C-alpha cells in the first residue's frame, strides 16, 4: 500500500492534547459524579480551572504534595471513585514513584495517573521539569499500563477508556498543539498501535508527540527518495502491540523507533527487547534523548537538537537503509 498522507500542509492542526484531556474530563464528569480529579496545585497547568469551577465537588486539591496526590488517589479509587491524579509528569513519576508502585499498582487501585507537560514540554525549565525517565520506570512496574497519545483523537479516546478502566494506568502528554494524524475510520484501543501510513520499505514507530515528526520524515522520504514508510503510533508502550511488531518485522524492512524519552528503557528498548528475543534480523535503531546533560530550549528546539525532526529522522532512516533507495526526480 502506498503512503496515504500527502503533504505536510494538509495536516489539520488540532489543540494541545492537554486541552482535549480537560474538555474530555468535563464531558465525562457531567454524566458521572464518581469522576474525581486530584491536583497538586496543578489545576492551572492541567487546564483544569474550568473543571474545578463546573464540578467543584469532583475536584480534590491536595496542595504541592505529589506523594499524597497519589496515595490519596489510591484511597479514593479503592472506595470506588474514578480518579484522575494529575500532575506534571516529572514530579508524578519521580517524587511519587513509590506510591505509584505500591499504593496504585501493587494494591491494584485503578487510579488514572495523568502526567502533564511530559517529556521536554517544559524544555527551557531544565532537567528538574523534564520527564525522560517515566516510560522506563513505569514499564518496570507490574500492573501498570503506559500510554502516550499522539494526537487529539488518541488523547480523547485514552481518557474515555481510562475512565472506565478497572486497572492502573499512566497516561502522559504535552502542551503543544498537535495535528490530527489519523484516518477518520480508525478505532482506538489500548495495546493496539495505529498505522498512520503503511509502506513496505521502512517502519518508523513513534509514540506521543514524536509521531508527528516521524510522519513528516516519512513524507520527505517519499517525496525525495520514493521510500514508502510505515508510520506507527505506538500509543500504548505497555502492553506493546506485539502483533504489529511481528507484522513489521516479517517485512524485513529496517525499523526505527522515535521517542521523547531517554534512549534507555523506553519505547525503543521495549520494541527491541520483544523483537530480538524473537530472533528478528531487521535493521533497528532507537532515536530519543541521549544519556547526557539535556540541552534546554523549547520542545521543538530540543527535538531539533537531538534529531527528533523531519530532517533528523530522515537522515537516520537513510543511514539505516544503507543506500538501498533511489532519488526520485521531481
Amino acid at each position, binding site marked *: 500500500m502506498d503512503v496515504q498522507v500527502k503533504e505536510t500542509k494538509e495536516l489539520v492542526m488540532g489543540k494541545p492534547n492537554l486541552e482535549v484531556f480537560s474538555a474530555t474530563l468535563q464531558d465525562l464528569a457531567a454524566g458521572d459524579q464518581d469522576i*474525581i480529579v486530584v491536583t497538586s496545585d496543578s489545576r492551572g497547568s492541567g487546564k483544569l480551572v474550568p473543571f474545578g469551577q463546573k464540578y467543584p465537588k469532583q475536584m*480534590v486539591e491536595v496542595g504541592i504534595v505529589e506523594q499524597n496526590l497519589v496515595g*490519596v488517589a*489510591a484511597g479514593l479509587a*479503592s*472506595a470506588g471513585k474514578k480518579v484522575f491524579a494529575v500532575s506534571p509528569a516529572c514530579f508524578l513519576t519521580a517524587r511519587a514513584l513509590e506510591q505509584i508502585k505500591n*499504593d496504585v499498582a501493587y*494494591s491494584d487501585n485503578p487510579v488514572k495517573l495523568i502526567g502533564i507537560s511530559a517529556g521536554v514540554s517544559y524544555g527551557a525549565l531544565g532537567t528538574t521539569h523534564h520527564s525522560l525517565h517515566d516510560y522506563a520506570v513505569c514499564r518496570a512496574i507490574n500492573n501498570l499500563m503506559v500510554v502516550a497519545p499522539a494526537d487529539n483523537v488518541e488523547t480523547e479516546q485514552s481518557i474515555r477508556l481510562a475512565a472506565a478502566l478497572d486497572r492502573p494506568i499512566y497516561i502522559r502528554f504535552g502542551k503543544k498543539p498537535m495535528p490530527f494524524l489519523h484516518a477518520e475510520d480508525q478505532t482506538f484501543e489500548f495495546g493496539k498501535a495505529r498505522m498512520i501510513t503503511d509502506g513496505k520499505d521502512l517502519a518508523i514507530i513513534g509514540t506521543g508527540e514524536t509521531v508527528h515528526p516521524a510522519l513528516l520524515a516519512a513524507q520527505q522520504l517519499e517525496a525525495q527518495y520514493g521510500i514508502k514508510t510505515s508510520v506507527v503510533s505506538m500509543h500504548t508502550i505497555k502492553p506493546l502491540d506485539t502483533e504489529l511488531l511481528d507484522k513489521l518485522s516479517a517485512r524485513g524492512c529496517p525499523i526505527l523507533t522515535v521517542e521523547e524519552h531517554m534512549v534507555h528503557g523506553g519505547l525503543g528498548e521495549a520494541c527491541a527487547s520483544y523483537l530480538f528475543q524473537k530472533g528478528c534480523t531487521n535493521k533497528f535503531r532507537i532515536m530519543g534523548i541521549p544519556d547526557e546533560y539535556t540541552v534546554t530550549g523549547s520542545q521543538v528546539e530540543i527535538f531539533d537538537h537531538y534529531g527528533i525532526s523531519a530532517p533528523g529522522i530522515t537522515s537516520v532512516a537513510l543511514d539505516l537503509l544503507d543506500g538501498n533507495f533511489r532519488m526520485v526526480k521531481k
Partner: protein
Amino acid sequence: MTDRELQQKSVQLRKKLLKYIYQAKAGHTGGSLSCIDILNVLYNRVLNIDPDDFKNPDRDRYIQSKGHSVEALFVTLADRGFFPESDLETLCQYQSHYIGHPTKKVRGVEQNTGALGHGLPICVGESLAAKMDHKSHRIFTLLGDGELPEGSNWEAMLIAAHYKLDNLYAILDYNKQQITGSNQEVMNTEPIKDKVEAFGWSVKEVDGHDLKALEDVLNNGPFAEGKPNFIIAHTIKGKGISYMEGVLKWHHGVPNEELYAQAQKELDDLELAL
C-alpha cells in the same frame, strides 16, 4: 463477648502470633506484641465489619500502615473468621499469600502495605470518599512510631485537617523504639501531641494495653467535630513476655526453643490469672 473474654483473647492472640513467628523463624515480634491489644479491640469491639460480607461498601476500614507487624493482623483476622487459622501454617513459605506484610491476597486485608508512610494517605482518600458519599463509616490506620518521621504522614495530616476528615482515626503504636534504638536516639519526634494538634487534629492519649480505655477512646469519636482523630497509644514493645519487654533485639528477633517455651508458659500463667 465479655470483657474478661476479650482480655483472654489478647493473651491467646499473643500465643498464636508467637507460635507462627516461631514456626516461620521470621517476624516482627516486638511490634506485633505492642499492637496486638489495639487490634483485638478494633476487630472485636470497634470495627463494623462482617467477615461474610467483607466487601460491604459501608464497612469500617482498617489499613495497617506499620505493615511489618503483620503477624498481629493475621492472627486477629483468622480469629475473627476471615480465614482458617491453619492457613497461617504457611506463613512466609514459598508461594504462601501469608507473607511478611499485609496483602489483599489475604481475605480481610484492605491494602497492600509494608513501605512506611503509606497507610495514612490512602486512609485520607478513603475518608474523603466517605465524606463525598455522605457515608458514616470510619477509617482507621495504625502507625508505627518509627515511621512517623516520613514526610508523607505529615502531608496527609495537612490534607486531613484541611478537609475536616473527622471520620479518620490514626492510632500511633507508641512503643518508643524502632529497629536501631529508641525513637529519641534515632530521630526525636516529640512533642508528638503538640505537633499533631498544631496540624489541626484532635489528639487523645491512651494506655495501648488497657482494652477498656482503648475501646472508650476509639468508639467515642470524633473527639472534636470537623477534626481528624489521632490516638497516641502508649505501648511496650514485646509486651507480655518478660524477657522481650522493651528489649530492642526483639524488634524482629525469633525466640529459640527454650525461650519460646518460656514465653508460652508466661502467657499460660497470665491467662489463668485472668
